[in-house]
C-alpha cells in the first residue's frame, strides 16, 4: 500500500508543486489536452485521495484509541460513479476533527516550547507526531481547505526565513553562524530519531524530503522563538493566527525578488550553500529552484536588468503612503504606543517603518527618473545640438524613447551589469552605481543649462524690454478723456463724443425706429382693427396713486367697548373659517335684504322645478348672475401700464402732447443749423413782412388818431397808446373799414372837378340801374321769330 502510494505520489507531488506555483497552467492543460488524459488524471487523483483518506483514518485509529475521524474506514470512491461533491463531503467529514486535533497539538507544542525556553537542554520539540506529518501535508495539498493554507504558508515561511537568515547573515555574522550551527546539530539529532522510528520508510524519497523540510522548519521555529524572546512587540503580534516570522519572511522574499538579477543569483547561491550545509541531499529542492527560475524568467525585464514584480505605478503609490522619510519621525517609532492623530495617519504608522534601504532606493530612482525626463526634454528641444558622443557616457535607464537612445541604453546596461558582476553582490553596489549616475547626470545638466543661457538669443530680451517700455509709457501717459471723470467740451478733443460710445440711462421708453417694418406693423394693426370693427380710441392711462388708495381701504377700528365676549368673538371667527358663515354680515343685513334673499332663493328653486317639469330631456342650468364675460381682445394699451413708480407722468408724455398748442411751421421743432438756405431766407422775409405790416398799421393808426383828435396832438404818450390799443382791438373786431383810394380818378385836386365827378357818379348809379332794367327788358322783348330754328 505504502509503496504504491509513494510510486503514485512521486510524480504527482512534482505535478502538484507545479500546480501550486502556477495554478492556471493546469487549466490550460485541460483546455488543450484530450479528455483521455483528463480522465486519467482524475482517476489518479481519486486513488491518491482514497489512499490518503485511509491512511489518516488509520493514524487516527492508532493515536486515538481506535476512534476514526470520519467514522469510516475507507473513502467511498468508485470510478466514474462518485462525483466531486461526495468526495469533498467525505473529506470535509474527516477534516473537521482533524483540524481540531491539529489545533490541540499546536497548543501542546506551544506549551512545550515555553517549557523548553526555561530548560535549554530538554529534548527537541515536535509539532505533530511525525508519523502523521507527510500524510497531513499531502492531504492538505490535495484538497483546498484551511489546513492547506497552513501547510503552504509554513512552506513559504521556510523559504522566506531562509532568505531572511541569509540576508541578516551579512549584518551579524558571528551570531548567525552560531545559530546555524546549533540548528544543524538539532536537525541532525532529529533526523537520527526519525530514521530510527521509520526504518521501513527510508526508501521513500518523498517522505524523506518532507521530513527534511519539517526539520528545517522546526529548527527555524526554535530560532524564531529565540527572536521572539528578544522582541516583545513581535511576541504580542504572534497570537497563533499570524506569525510574525512568516510575514517577515514573506516580505523579505518580496524584497529579494525586487533586487537585481545578479543579486538574485547571489541569493540563490547562498540558499544552496545553506541547504548544502543543512541537509545531505536536496535534489528536489534544486528542481524546485530550477522551476522557479524558469517561471521567474517570464517576468524578467531585459531592459532594466531587474525583475519587475510590481508595476511602476504601484511602487510609487506604495511609497507615497510612507510620505515621510524613514528618519523623519523616529521619536514616534520610539514611543511605541504611538498616539498618532488618525486623520494624519500614514501607512508607516499603521504597518511600521519600512526598511530604510528601500526608501533610499526609491528616492534615488525617482531622482534619476526626473533627471532623465529633464534631459530627454532638453534633447527634444535641441535635437540638432545633441551631442551623441556625450550621450554614450550618459547612464540613463530610460526604456522608451528613440531607437538610437535605446541602443545606447542597452549597451550601457550591459556594461553596468558586467561591472556589477565584478563587484561584490550586495545592494550597496547598486546604490553606488546609482550615485555615480546621479553625479554624472547633474554635471551634464549644469553644463546644458549654462549652454542654454549663453545661447539664449538677445532678441527675446530686447523684445520684452520694448514691451515693458511700452507698458510703462502707457501707464505714465495722460489718461484718455473718457477715464477722467466729469469733463467739459473744451477739455476733450473735437468730435470725440461722436466717436465715443458713452453709456447713460434713460427712464423713459426709447422711441421706436421708424422704418418699413414699423409702418407695416402699424398698417397691420389698422387693418386688423378695421376687420374687427374696433373703432375705440386710445384710452388715456391713469397711474393709480397707491398711498391714497391704501389709506382709504383701511377699516375703522371701533374704539368702544366690545359688546361681545371674547368667547363669542373666537366662536364667530371659527364659524367664518370652518363653515363660511359670517355672523357679522348676517347681522348687518336689513329686513328688506333678508326678505329679498329669501325670495331669490325660493324663486330659483321654483324655476329649477318648473324646468324639470316642462322639459323631459333638457333642463337648462340656473343662470349664474355673477358670470362676467369679457372681450378676449382687450385694448393693448392697458397692458402698457407698467411704468416705474418713481417716473412721473411728465416724462411719459408723447411729443405731440407736449407741443399740442402749436400748428404748422411752429409745431415742428427745428434749429437754425437744421435749416437750409431757402428756408432761412423764407423765415427772414416772413419776419420782415410781419414787421413791416406791423409798422404800417401803427403809422396808419397814429394818422387816424391824429385826425380824430387833432387837439390832443402827440404830446401825451399815454393817451396816444391808449387810443392805439382801442383802435387795434376795434380792428380786430372788424368795426374799422379802411377807405380805398380810386386809382383811376386823378382829378381830386380841384374842388369843381371833384364835385362834377361826384355828380356824375351819383347820376350814373341811378341811371345805371334804370338802364340795367331797360336792357333786361329789351332782351326779353326779342321776338321768337328772330330766332332761327
Amino acid at each position, binding site marked *: 500500500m505504502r509503496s504504491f502510494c509513494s510510486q503514485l505520489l512521486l510524480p504527482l507531488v512534482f505535478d502538484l508543486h507545479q500546480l501550486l506555483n502556477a495554478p492556471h497552467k493546469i487549466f490550460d492543460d485541460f483546455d488543450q489536452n484530450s479528455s483521455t488524459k483528463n480522465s486519467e488524471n482524475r482517476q489518479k487523483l481519486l486513488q491518491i485521495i482514497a489512499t490518503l483518506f485511509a491512511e489518516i483514518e488509520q493514524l487516527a485509529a492508532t493515536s486515538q484509541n481506535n476512534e476514526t475521524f470520519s467514522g469510516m474506514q475507507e473513502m467511498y470512491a468508485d470510478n466514474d460513479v462518485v462525483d466531486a461533491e461526495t468526495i469533498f463531503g467525505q473529506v470535509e467529514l474527516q477534516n473537521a476533527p482533524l483540524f481540531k486535533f491539529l489545533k490541540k497539538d499546536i497548543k501542546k507544542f506551544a506549551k512545550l516550547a515555553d517549557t523548553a525556553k526555561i530548560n535549554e537542554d530538554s529534548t527537541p520539540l515536535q509539532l505533530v507526531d511525525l508519523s502523521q506529518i507527510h500524510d497531513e501535508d499531502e492531504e492538505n495539498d490535495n484538497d483546498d481547505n484551511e489546513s492547506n493554507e497552513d501547510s503552504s504558508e509554513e512552506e513559504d515561511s521556510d523559504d522566506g526565513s531562509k532568505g531572511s537568515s541569509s540576508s541578516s547573515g551579512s549584518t551579524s555574522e558571528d551570531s548567525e553562524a552560531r545559530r546555524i550551527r546549533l540548528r544543524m546539530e538539532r536537525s541532525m539529532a532529529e533526523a537520527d530519531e526519525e530514521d530510527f522510528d521509520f526504518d521501513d520508510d527510508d526508501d521513500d524519497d518523498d517522505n524523506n524530503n518532507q521530513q527534511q523540510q519539517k526539520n528545517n522548519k522546526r529548527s527555524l521555529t526554535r530560532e524564531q522563538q529565540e527572536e521572539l524572546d528578544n522582541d516583545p512587540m513581535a511576541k504580542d503580534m504572534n497570537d497563533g493566527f499570524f506569525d510574525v516570522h512568516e510575514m517577515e519572511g514573506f516580505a523579505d522574499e518580496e524584497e529579494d525578488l525586487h533586487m537585481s538579477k545578479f543579486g538574485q543569483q547571489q541569493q540563490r547561491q547562498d540558499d544552496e550553500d545553506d541547504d548544502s550545509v543543512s541537509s545531505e541531499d536536496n535534489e528536489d529542492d534544486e528542481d524546485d529552484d530550477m522551476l522557479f527560475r524558469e517561471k521567474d524568467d517570464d517576468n524578467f525585464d531585459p531592459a532594466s536588468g531587474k525583475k519587475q514584480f510590481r508595476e511602476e505605478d504601484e511602487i510609487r503609490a506604495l511609497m507615497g503612503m510612507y510620505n515621510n522619510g524613514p528618519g523623519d519621525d523616529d521619536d514616534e517609532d520610539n514611543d511605541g504606543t504611538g498616539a498618532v492623530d488618525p486623520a494624519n495617519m500614514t501607512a508607516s504608522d499603521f504597518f511600521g517603518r519600512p526598511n530604510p534601504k528601500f526608501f533610499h532606493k526609491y528616492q534615488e530612482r525617482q531622482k534619476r527618473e526626473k533627471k532623465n525626463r529633464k534631459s530627454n526634454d532638453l534633447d527634444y528641444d535641441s535635437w540638432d545640438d545633441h551631442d551623441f558622443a556625450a550621450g554614450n557616457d550618459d547612464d540613463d535607464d530610460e526604456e522608451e524613447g528613440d531607437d538610437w537612445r535605446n541602443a545606447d541604453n542597452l549597451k550601457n546596461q550591459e556594461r553596468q551589469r558586467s561591472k556589477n558582476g565584478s563587484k561584490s553582490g550586495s545592494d550597496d553596489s547598486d546604490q553606488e552605481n546609482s550615485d555615480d549616475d546621479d553625479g554624472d547626470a547633474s554635471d551634464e545638466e549644469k553644463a546644458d543649462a549654462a549652454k542654454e543661457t549663453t545661447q539664449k538669443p538677445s532678441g527675446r530680451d530686447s523684445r520684452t524690454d520694448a514691451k515693458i517700455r511700452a507698458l510703462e509709457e502707457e501707464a505714465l501717459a495722460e489718461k484718455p478723456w473718457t477715464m477722467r471723470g466729469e469733463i467739459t467740451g473744451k477739455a476733450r478733443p473735437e468730435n470725440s463724443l461722436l466717436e465715443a460710445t458713452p453709456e447713460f440711462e434713460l427712464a423713459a421708453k426709447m422711441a421706436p425706429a421708424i422704418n418699413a417694418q414699423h409702418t407695416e406693423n402699424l398698417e397691420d394693426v389698422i387693418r386688423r382693427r378695421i376687420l374687427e370693427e374696433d373703432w375705440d380710441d386710445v384710452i388715456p392711462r391713469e397711474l393709480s396713486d397707491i398711498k391714497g388708495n391704501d389709506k382709504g*381701504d*383701511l*377699516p*375703522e*377700528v*371701533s*374704539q*368702544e*367697548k*366690545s359688546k361681545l*365676549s*371674547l*368667547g363669542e*368673538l*373666537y366662536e364667530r*371667527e371659527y364659524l*367664518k*373659517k370652518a363653515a363660511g358663515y359670517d355672523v357679522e354680515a348676517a347681522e348687518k343685513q336689513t329686513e328688506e335684504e333678508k326678505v329679498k334673499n329669501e325670495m331669490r332663493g325660493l324663486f330659483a328653486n321654483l324655476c329649477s322645478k318648473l324646468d324639470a317639469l316642462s322639459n323631459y330631456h333638457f333642463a337648462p342650468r340656473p343662470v349664474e348672475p355673477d358670470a362676467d364675460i369679457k372681450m378676449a381682445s382687450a385694448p393693448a394699451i392697458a397692458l402698457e401700464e407698467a411704468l416705474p413708480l418713481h417716473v412721473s407722468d411728465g416724462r411719459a408724455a408723447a411729443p405731440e402732447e407736449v407741443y399740442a398748442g402749436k400748428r404748422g411751421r411752429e409745431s415742428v421743432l427745428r434749429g437754425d443749423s437744421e435749416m437750409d438756405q431757402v428756408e432761412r431766407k423764407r423765415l427772414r422775409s416772413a419776419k420782415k413782412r410781419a414787421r413791416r405790416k406791423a409798422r404800417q398799421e401803427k403809422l396808419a393808426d397814429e394818422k387816424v388818431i391824429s385826425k380824430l383828435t387833432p387837439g390832443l396832438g402827440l404830446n401825451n404818450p399815454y393817451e396816444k397808446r391808449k387810443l392805439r390799443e382801442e383802435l387795434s382791438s376795434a380792428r380786430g373786431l372788424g368795426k374799422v373799414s379802411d377807405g380805398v383810394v380810386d386809382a383811376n380818378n386823378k382829378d381830386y385836386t380841384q374842388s369843381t372837378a371833384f364835385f362834377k365827378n361826384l355828380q356824375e357818379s351819383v347820376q350814373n348809379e341811378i341811371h345805371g340801374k334804370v338802364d340795367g332794367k331797360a336792357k333786361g327788358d329789351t332782351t326779353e322783348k326779342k321776338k321768337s321769330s328772330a330766332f332761327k330754328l
Partner: protein
Amino acid sequence: KKPFRSSPSQNTLLHKMEVEQQNVQHKVSGDVGEHAIETSNAHTTIDPSVLQSRILQSKSLAYSDASDDTLPVFEQMSQQNHGSESLYRRVRCPAHRYTPLRNDWEAILAPLVHYLKLQVRFNTKNRCVEMKTSVHTIDCPASSLQKGADFVAAYMLGFEIQDAVALLRLEDLFVESFQVTDVKMLKGDHLSRAIGRIAGQDGKTRFAIENATRTRIVVADSRIHMLGSYANIRVARNALCSLILGAPPGKVYNNMRNVAKRMNERY
C-alpha cells in the same frame, strides 16, 4: 395636616426652585428687541407635575408675588395621591376683587359647578376661592380642576366673567401678564403717562387694541394682563410695548387698523 405656609425666606427660595423646576420660562419672541420679557406661569400652578397653567407671568411679577407673605406655598404632592384622593386648588382673592367677586359669585359658580362639576367654596378666613374634584367630576379631574383654577385666577386678575369663561371653552387661550417697567424703566410722571397712553382717553386706545387684535386687556396700575390666543396676544403686546416706549397713540391706532385689515383678509 400639611403645613401650607413656611417662613418668608424659605418661601421665596421655594418659589424660585419651583419656577426653575417648571422649566416653562418662555422667552418672549424678540418683537420688542431688547425689551423681551421672560414669563412663567407660576401664578396658579400649585403642583407643577400635574398640568401647566395657561396663565403666564413675567418674572418680575412672579418674584414680587413670591415676596408677598400672604401667598400660600404648598408642598409638592405626590402622584400616587391623585388616584384616590380628590384634587384641591385655592385661588387667592385680592382685596380689590373682593366686592366684584361677591357680586358675581353666582355667575362664577355656574360654569364651575354645572360644566366642570367641581366643588367650590369661598373661604372668608383667608379670602381664597377653594375648589376640589369630586366623584361627579368627569373628564380628566386634574385638567378640569386646572381649567377652573385658571378661570377663577383670570377673574381675580380683573377680567370680566364673560371673557374669562372663554378659558373654559377654548383650549388655546392664554393669559399673559407683564409690568410696564419690564419694557422700560419708567418712574414717576413718565410711568403715569405711559399707563395713560395705554388706556387712552376713556379707554379708547385700549379698546381699539382689544377690538383689532381680539384680545382682552386689563390695566391694573403698572401691571398689564392680556387674555387671548397666542398669536393675538403677541400682536397686542407689540402695540402695548410700542405705547410704553413712547409711540404716539395715533400711530399705534393706524397700526391697529392695518392689523384689523390683515385679520379680515386672512379668511
